[in-house]
C-alpha cells in the first residue's frame, strides 16, 4: 500500500492524461466554448451591430471579442470596432460615453457578458456610477435604498441612456403640483437646461449673486427671471432694479435706472438719498428743508443746481445780477455775504474798504454802478470842478490829501527850479486850471531888461536858473562862427541893447593902417571869422591866379601892392621889349590890360 510518489499513482496519471485529452477534444468541439464562463447575451438592441443582432450570435467565436494574446490589441478595441456609435461619442466628447470620458481601456469597467442569455451587459454600479459626468448629478436624487431616494428606472424608464423631461415633470408634479405648474409656465419644461442635479434653485438655493432680502424674499423666481429657459439666460438676468421695476417707476424714468441709490429691497417707501452724491450737496440752511421745497411736484431731476433755480423769487436785487447768488451769498444765510469787489474791476482799497455798500450803491443798485470818482465824490470836489471829474489823476483812495500830480501831463512841465517850488507859488488862490504858462505871469521883467527884451524869457533863460542865460546867436542874422564863438557878448554888444549891434565887420574891427586906402571893400572879401590871417582873396580876379606857376601866392605878381602888379619878375624887360617891337603902348605894368593880355594868355 505504500505509494512513494503519493498521488502520482499509475491510475492517477492515466486519469490526468484522460482529462487533458477530454478537455482538448471538448475545446475543439465547442470552439473553446468549454472555457466560456457563461452564455453570451441574446438581448438585441435595435439593429445589427458589427453584423450581429446580439452577442449570442458570437458564441464559439471567442476571437470576435478576445484579441490574440500579446498582440497589443485590447478587447475594448474590438468592442469599439463594432459599437461605432460609442466610438463616435468618445471621439466627440458627447453622449453618455463621451461625457464619461470612456475609452477602449474602460469598457470593462461598466460592461461584461457571459452572464447568461438575458443578463444585462452593463454592470455599472448605480451607487458608484459617476452620474455627474453625464451633466446631471444625483446629489439631490439619491438612489433608492431603505425606502428613500429614487431608482434608475424612475428617471430612465425606457433605457439608462435615455431621458425625457416629462419624467421629471410627472414626478415633481406629484410633489408640488401648484409650484410645478407655475414653474413650467415660467421656465418651460427643458429641466436640464437649468438643473444639473446639484442646485435645485428652490427654497434652499443660495441666491448669493443677488441676495434676496426684503420684498425680494417672497417674490416668485419667474417674476425676475422672465422667459429664462436655460441656465445661461437665468444667470444672465440683469441685477439692475429697473429691469424689473421700470414699469412701476413712479418717477417715470426721471431719476434714471439706479433705484438702489435711494430705495432698498425693504420697500419703496422710506427712501433715503445721500444728497451729497448729487451735484448739489445740502449744506447750511439747505439741510433740513423739505424736499418738496426745491423738488416741486416731486420732480427729482432737472431741478438745476443754481441758486436762482429756487430763489429767483427771493431776489432782492431785482435781477441785477445774472450770475449765481453763491458768488456773494453763502448757504448759511442770505446775510452771509462775501464778495470780491476786485472782480468787478473796482477793487475796494484803503478808504473804499470801510464804507457800507449803500454809500456807493444807493438804492440797492449794484449793477452798472459807475466807477468814476466823480460819480460818488462830486459833492466832495474841493476844486469846484476845475479839474474835471477824474479825481484819481491826482488823488488816491487813502485820503484826499494824499494827492500826487504829474505836472508833465500838463502843457507846463516842471523842470529845473520849478520842480521844487510849492504849487501855490504859481497857482495862487487855489486856482490850478488856466494858470498861464508864460514866464512873465510869475516872473516880473527885471529893470535891467529894457524894452529890447520883448520876447520870451526862455529865449535866453532856462528853468534851472536865471543865470547864466544863453542865447542862440544862430537864430539871428549874424551866426557866430570861428573866432566869434566864445567871444564875450559885450565885445560886440557894447550897450545894454543887444539888438542894436551892427553886423558889419568894421563896426567892431577897425581897418588896420596897413590896408591903406587900397581895401575899401568888405573885410570878408579876404578874411574869414576864423582869424585875420591868413587872408584869402575871394573877390573878382579876371587874371588867372595860378598864372605862371603863382599857385595862388599873391606876392608873385603883387610884390608891393595888392592893387598893382608886376610882370617883370618873371618876364624880363629886355625880352619883352624885343617881343613887343612894333607894338605901341607896350609897358610891363599894363600887360593885363584888356587890350593886351587880360587872361594872361595870348601873343
Amino acid at each position: 500500500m505504500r505509494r512513494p510518489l503519493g498521488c502520482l499513482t499509475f491510475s492517477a496519471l492515466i486519469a490526468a492524461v484522460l482529462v487533458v485529452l477530454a478537455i482538448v477534444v471538448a475545446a475543439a468541439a465547442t470552439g473553446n466554448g468549454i472555457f466560456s464562463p457563461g452564455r453570451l447575451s441574446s438581448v438585441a438592441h435595435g439593429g445589427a451591430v458589427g453584423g450581429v443582432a446580439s452577442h449570442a450570435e458570437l458564441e464559439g467565436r471567442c476571437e470576435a471579442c478576445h484579441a490574440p494574446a500579446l498582440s497589443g490589441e485590447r478587447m475594448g478595441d474590438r468592442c469599439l470596432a463594432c459599437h461605432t456609435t460609442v466610438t463616435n461619442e468618445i471621439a466627440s466628447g458627447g453622449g453618455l460615453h463621451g461625457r464619461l470620458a470612456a475609452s477602449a481601456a474602460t469598457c470593462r469597467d461598466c460592461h461584461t457578458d457571459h452572464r447568461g442569455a438575458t443578463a444585462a451587459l452593463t454592470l455599472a454600479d448605480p451607487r458608484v456610477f459617476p452620474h455627474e459626468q453625464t451633466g446631471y448629478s444625483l446629489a439631490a436624487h439619491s438612489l433608492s435604498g431603505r425606502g428613500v431616494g429614487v431608482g434608475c428606472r424612475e428617471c430612465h424608464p425606457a433605457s439608462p441612456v435615455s431621458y425625457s423631461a416629462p419624467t421629471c415633470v410627472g414626478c415633481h408634479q406629484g410633489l408640488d403640483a401648484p409650484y410645478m405648474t407655475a414653474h413650467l409656465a415660467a421656465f418651460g419644461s427643458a429641466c436640464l437646461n437649468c438643473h444639473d442635479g446639484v442646485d435645485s434653485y428652490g427654497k434652499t438655493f443660495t441666491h448669493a449673486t443677488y441676495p434676496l432680502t426684503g420684498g425680494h424674499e417672497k417674490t416668485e423666481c419667474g417674476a425676475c427671471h422672465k422667459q429664462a429657459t436655460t441656465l445661461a439666460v437665468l444667470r444672465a438676468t440683469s441685477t439692475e432694479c429697473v429691469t424689473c421695476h421700470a414699469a412701476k417707476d413712479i418717477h417715470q424714468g426721471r431719476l434714471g435706472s439706479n433705484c438702489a441709490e435711494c430705495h432698498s429691497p425693504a420697500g419703496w417707501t422710506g427712501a433715503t438719498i445721500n444728497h451729497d452724491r448729487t451735484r448739489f450737496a445740502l449744506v447750511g440752511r439747505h439741510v433740513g428743508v423739505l424736499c418738496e421745497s426745491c423738488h416741486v411736484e416731486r420732480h427729482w431731476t432737472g431741478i438745476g443746481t443754481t441758486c436762482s433755480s429756487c430763489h429767483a423769487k427771493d431776489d432782492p436785487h431785482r435781477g441785477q445780477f445774472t450770475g449765481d447768488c453763491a458768488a456773494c451769498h453763502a448757504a448759511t444765510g442770505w446775510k452771509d455775504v462775501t464778495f470780491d469787489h476786485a472782480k468787478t474791476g473796482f477793487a475796494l482799497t484803503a478808504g473804499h474798504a470801510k464804507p457800507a455798500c449803500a454809500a456807493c450803491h444807493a438804492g440797492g443798485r449794484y449793477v452798472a454802478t459807475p466807477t468814476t470818482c466823480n460819480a460818488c465824490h462830486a459833492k466832495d470836489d474841493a476844486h469846484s470842478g476845475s479839474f474835471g471829474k477824474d479825481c484819481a489823476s491826482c488823488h488816491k483812495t487813502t485820503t484826499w490829501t494824499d494827492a500826487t500830480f504829474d505836472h508833465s501831463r500838463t502843457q507846463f512841465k516842471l523842470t529845473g527850479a520849478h520842480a521844487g517850488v510849492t504849487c501855490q507859488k504859481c497857482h495862487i488862490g487855489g486856482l490850478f486850471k488856466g494858470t498861464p504858462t508864460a514866464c512873465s505871469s510869475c516872473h516880473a521883467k527885471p529893470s535891467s531888461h529894457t524894452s529890447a527884451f520883448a520876447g520870451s524869457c526862455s529865449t535866453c533863460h532856462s528853468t534851472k536858473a536865471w543865470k547864466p542865460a544863453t542865447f542862440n546867436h544862430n537864430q539871428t542874422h549874424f551866426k557866430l562862427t570861428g573866432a566869434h564863438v566864445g567871444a564875450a557878448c559885450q565885445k560886440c554888444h557894447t550897450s545894454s541893447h543887444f539888438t542894436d549891434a551892427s553886423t558889419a565887420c568894421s563896426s567892431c574891427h577897425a581897418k588896420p593902417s596897413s590896408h591903406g586906402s587900397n581895401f575899401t571893400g568888405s573885410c570878408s572879401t579876404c578874411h574869414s571869422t576864423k582869424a585875420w590871417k591868413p587872408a584869402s582873396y575871394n573877390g573878382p580876379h579876371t587874371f588867372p591866379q595860378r598864372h605862371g606857376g603863382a599857385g595862388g601866392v599873391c606876392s608873385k605878381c603883387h610884390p608891393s601892392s595888392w592893387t598893382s602888379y608886376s610882370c617883370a619878375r618873371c618876364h624880363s624887360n629886355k625880352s619883352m621889349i624885343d617881343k613887343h617891337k612894333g607894338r605901341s603902348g607896350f609897358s610891363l605894368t599894363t600887360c593885363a590890360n584888356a587890350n593886351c593880355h587880360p587872361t594872361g594868355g595870348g601873343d
Partner: protein
Amino acid sequence: MARSRELVLALLAILAITGLYAGYAQAVSVPAASGLIGHSLGIVGFLMMLMTETLYSLRKRAMRRPRGSMRSWLQFHIFTGLVGSYLVVLHSAWSFNGLAGALTVMTIVVVGSGFVGRYIYTAVPRTADGVVIEAQELQGQLDLVRREMAMAQGAGAAIPSGTARHQDRRANRRLREIERQMAALRWARRVLATWHAIHIPLGMALFVMAFVHIGAAVHYATLLR
C-alpha cells in the same frame, strides 16, 4: 468531540464564510466569479485544496525530519479539504458552465469521496500516533496472548485456581478482540484499497482540470482583456 475537532472547526469556518457570503449577496449581489471577491474565493479555495492534496501526503513521507503529529496534519488536511472546496464552490457563483462547471462538480465529488474515505480510514486500527498497525504486529499480539493462555492452562489445568481462571478469561477476551480487529483490518484494507483506486484518480483529474481552468482564466480574462 476531541476526536472530530477538525470537523467542528471546518463546520464553524463554513458557517462563518456562509454568513459573510450571504450577507454580501443580500447587500450587494452574488459575487461574480470574475470579481474581486469571486476571484479571491477561488484562489484561496484552490490554494487550500492544493495544501490538502500535498501537505498531508508529504508529512506521511517525511520519515527523517517529521514536523508535527500525523493526527494534526490529518486534521489540517480535513479542515482545508472541506473549507477550501467550499470556497471553490462559492467561487463558481452558482454557475456551472463548461469546464468551470465540470470542475465545480468534480470538486464536490472529490470532497465527498474524501469525506467518505476519511471514515473508511478511521476504521483501520492505529496507535495513538495514528500509524496504521500492520498485520504482523497484530499477529504478534495474538501469539503473545495465546502463549499467555497456554502458560495459564499448564500451571493449573486440572483445577485452575481463581487467579488462573481470571487470567484465562482475560486472555480469551483479548484473543477475541484481536481476532475482531484482524477481521476488521482485513475488511478495511480491502475497502480502503478500493476507495484509493477511485479517489486518487478523481483528485488528479480535479487538479488537472483546475490548472487548465486557471490557465484559461488567465488567458482569456487577463491576457485577452
